[in-house]
């Protein structure tokens, strides 16, 4: 058994000047993977096979197999292709890509060179949300260093392979984390997802084949090249191999970003990494994978492990690894309100069920908070949510519908009680 807690991503964490190129090269096998691949030790096909064999799944939330995604680019197409690093990290509760940018940005860049080689892309972009001003600086600096060292640009390491990388700053919209919304935004348009098919791998940025991968996903690739798929699979579970960064927030002693193998026990993460709950607090509910993931009750959290399968078995999702501890002092009605308000605010508005559904739910929650909703409205939210699911171009509609369904299903009593109190008080409960 390999070591208990691998360092695949945050390899330079804790070192002095962790994000410097020198640190990455000296302490984290920096840029050895591209030397290996561009030096001829691996063909494109072998690289894709290795990533497929590693079982690496997209870390942005959907968990789609990365190697498989790369194969969707039509190889017969000889025109320009693009690789985009989705660093828009916008799921509420998630802040792990930000940590990667802060601690180990070069590993993302190296991963991009490898991915670009695999899909024959000669141009790439890192797309970061506006709010990450400091991290944008780190990335731009790292790109500069990589260019200066010959790891980016024309004829990288004398291999004949060209790859240019630019940074692009978004305006901070949730929807620009959806890959086709991101592409629209990158094209200078309003950030709205595009109707599929065609999929980006066939017709993406500027109508050309484009692969969009999450920051953390790309950061895994150099390690897989250096250590092999087999060793990667020693971490995590059969269906969820490797490590994962979890962004943990809430009433804990040490909330933060932790890299642990997939399949890691939730309780152990809370106790060992996070130092347990703050004194006097206990778990009321758990959001295991960002604001769009269905809530779990304390009972459902029993025996929970942090992997795609365990989450699916509880009808929720690992998502981007954003774990939010809802302790007993939180008011669920208010939490649901801010959750829905977020999605209603961020819905791009093009698909009717999402545009109108998120707004309607938000409208109902206004009524729950100020006491003007009717008791039947709480159950109505579940019906509305049901018809918002699986009907739209992108998953934002589902992202709003899923938590709503779980709140109403599991915490209906709490919502009804709040509404009754608000109605009796003639306004917000204080």
């Amino acid at each position, binding site marked *: 058994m390999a070591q208990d807690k691998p360092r695949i991503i945050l390899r330079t964490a804790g070192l002095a000047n962790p994000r410097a190129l020198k640190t990455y090269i000296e302490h984290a096998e920096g840029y050895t993977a591209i030397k290996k691949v561009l030096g001829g030790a691996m063909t494109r096909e072998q690289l894709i096979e290795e990533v497929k064999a590693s079982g690496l799944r997209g870390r942005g939330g959907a968990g789609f197999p990365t190697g498989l995604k790369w194969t969707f680019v039509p190889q017969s197409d000889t025109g320009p292709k693009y690789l985009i690093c989705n660093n828009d990290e916008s799921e509420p509760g998630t802040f792990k890509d930000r940590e990667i940018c802060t601690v180990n940005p070069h590993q993302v860049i190296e991963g991009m060179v490898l991915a670009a080689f695999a899909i024959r892309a000669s141009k790439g972009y890192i797309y970061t949300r506006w709010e990450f001003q400091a991290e944008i600086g780190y990335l731009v600096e790292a790109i500069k260093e990589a260019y200066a060292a010959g790891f980016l640009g024309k004829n990288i390491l004398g291999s004949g392979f060209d790859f240019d990388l630019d940074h692009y700053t978004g305006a901070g919209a949730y929807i620009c984390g959806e890959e086709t919304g991101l592409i629209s935004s990158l094209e200078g348009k309003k950030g709205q997802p595009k109707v599929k098919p065609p999929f980006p791998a066939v017709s993406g940025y500027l109508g050309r084949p484009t692969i969009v991968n999450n920051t953390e996903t790309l950061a895994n690739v150099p390690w897989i090249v250096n250590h092999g798929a087999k060793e990667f699979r020693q971490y995590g579970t059969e269906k969820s191999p490797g490590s994962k960064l979890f962004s943990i927030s809430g009433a804990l002693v040490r909330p933060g970003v932790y890299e642990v193998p997939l399949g890691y026990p939730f309780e152990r993460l809370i106790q060992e990494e996070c130092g347990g709950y703050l004194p006097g607090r206990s778990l009321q509910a758990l959001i295991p994978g960002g604001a769009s993931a269905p809530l779990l009750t304390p009972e459902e959290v029993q025996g929970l492990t942090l992997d795609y399968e365990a989450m699916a078995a509880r009808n929720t999702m690992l998502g981007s690894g954003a774990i939010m501890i809802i302790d007993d002092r939180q008011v669920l009605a208010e939490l649901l309100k801010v959750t829905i308000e977020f999605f*209603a*605010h961020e819905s*791009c508005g*093009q698909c*009717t069920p999402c545009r*109108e559904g998120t707004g*309607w739910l938000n409208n109902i929650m*206004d009524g729950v908070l100020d006491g003007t909703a009717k008791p039947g409205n709480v159950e109505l939210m579940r019906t509305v949510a049901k018809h918002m699911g*699986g*009907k739209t171009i992108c998953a934002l509609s589902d992202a709003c519908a899923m938590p709503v369904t779980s709140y109403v299903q599991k915490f209906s009593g709490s919502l009804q009680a709040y509404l009754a109190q608000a109605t009796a008080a003639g306004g917000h409960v204080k």
Partner: protein
Amino acid sequence: MSEASKGSQETVTFTLNDREITVPKGTTVMAAARQQDVYIPHFCWHPGLKIAGVCRFCLVKVDNRPKLEIACNLTATPGMKVSSVLPEVKEAHKWALEFHLVNHPLDCPICDQAGECKLQDYYMEVGKYKSEMDRPKVLKPKALEIGSELVLDTERCILCDRCVRFEEEVTKTGALGIFNRGDRAVIGTYPDKKIEHNYQDNLVDICPVGAFTSRDFRFKQRVWFLKEKPAVCPGCSTGCHVDVHAKPQVRTYFRLKPRESEVNGFWMCDKGRKTYKHMNQEQRLRFPLLTEASGVRRRSTVDEALAALAATMLKADKSEVALLVSAAYTCEEYAAFFEFFVRSLGVTNVYQWREPTEDREAFDGLLYRGDHNPNTRGLSEALKAVGLPGEVKDGFEALLRQAPKLVIALGPELAFQFPSLPAQLSRLEQLPFVSLWTIDGAAVSHVGLKHLLPMKGYAEKRGRFLNFAGKVGELADPFPAGSEDARDVVEVVAALSEILAHSL
């Protein structure tokens, strides 16, 4: 044979609602359904625009696929089994409608779209339930004067994006966008911009609800009182196929809408939309006027007017007679006219009447042409048929130089397309006897014109136009004439020839 044309001949057979359908490879289920007259409810899809896939109304069930899919973006594949009528699909349609109605104002009683509104239609088809939405609706800007022909109500808008795509793809003006997000999203123009092109009313047509309304038609008539008949627009030589909407019982025309055809696709221009007004009472010449020997001009019956004209004709030598012919009449009218005057009576002085400022070759790239006559081509052919030069040339000045004793003039139908018309009519007043056959009521003010005959409008007669490319446009189903005295050229010529036959 090229690859592309080979591809277009390949076909695909799939099943829609248990019915086998064969379509060219690459056809979407929605387009296939439309060809087969199977109606799948939709708002954003339009056969003349690219696919947006945003209304999420056209959901259908494909066998062995977990989720419902939108028919507009679903390419038919061999053996695919699609249903648009399963209970789960019906339920999805009902909810799609419900979402569209969440923030839609229920102002149908004052909305021009009522009666031809897709929301109303679908409510009757898949709805008929009590809405569960009991919260206050989102309020948005209303009655925005967004273009010279348009008024926009963003509250009624269901954000189907058709107008935005029309602006991008058809007129390529890109004047419209969707601003803001979520349920605050509104259609609008960019700051300080307005929609200024000649195709604005198409936005009213493609708007499935009452968000875009026509300034011209707004609040004039409830659409269910209108009767529509097919015709061909006389506004230019493109000859767009149209439907004329009128209320025949009160002899009033209200609007034109484009009718899908290979000539004009789905569209027509705003200029063309105005080609109903001249047929309404207040603008048209409603009865004959003749000037007696005493110089007194009076209203007459049609019979009197024709008898007077015949009498004048009998007194004139054919060399003193001239024909002045505009290009607004049907091929059948020209044939009868020239057969009678040229072939039978031997008149050889034939002049074409054209707007001197016209730029006949002008074309806006979409539909509107610089030749503002519907049948220039038909006139040419008719002239050639009687052995006269068919060359298109303004003969107005030449006619004046000849100063004939009797002029029979077929006036232009659309005065607004003939800016020089008032001046030309004034000059015709100088001639001894002009018999002007026209629908244009403004001719009345030219008191020197000795003889005026009221004509039918294009929507009131049968016949054919030949457009700029020689394509036939049929006028096959006329409205009753807007005035009882109005005649078409064929009728006038027949009556004249009868009178002359008796006189000779």
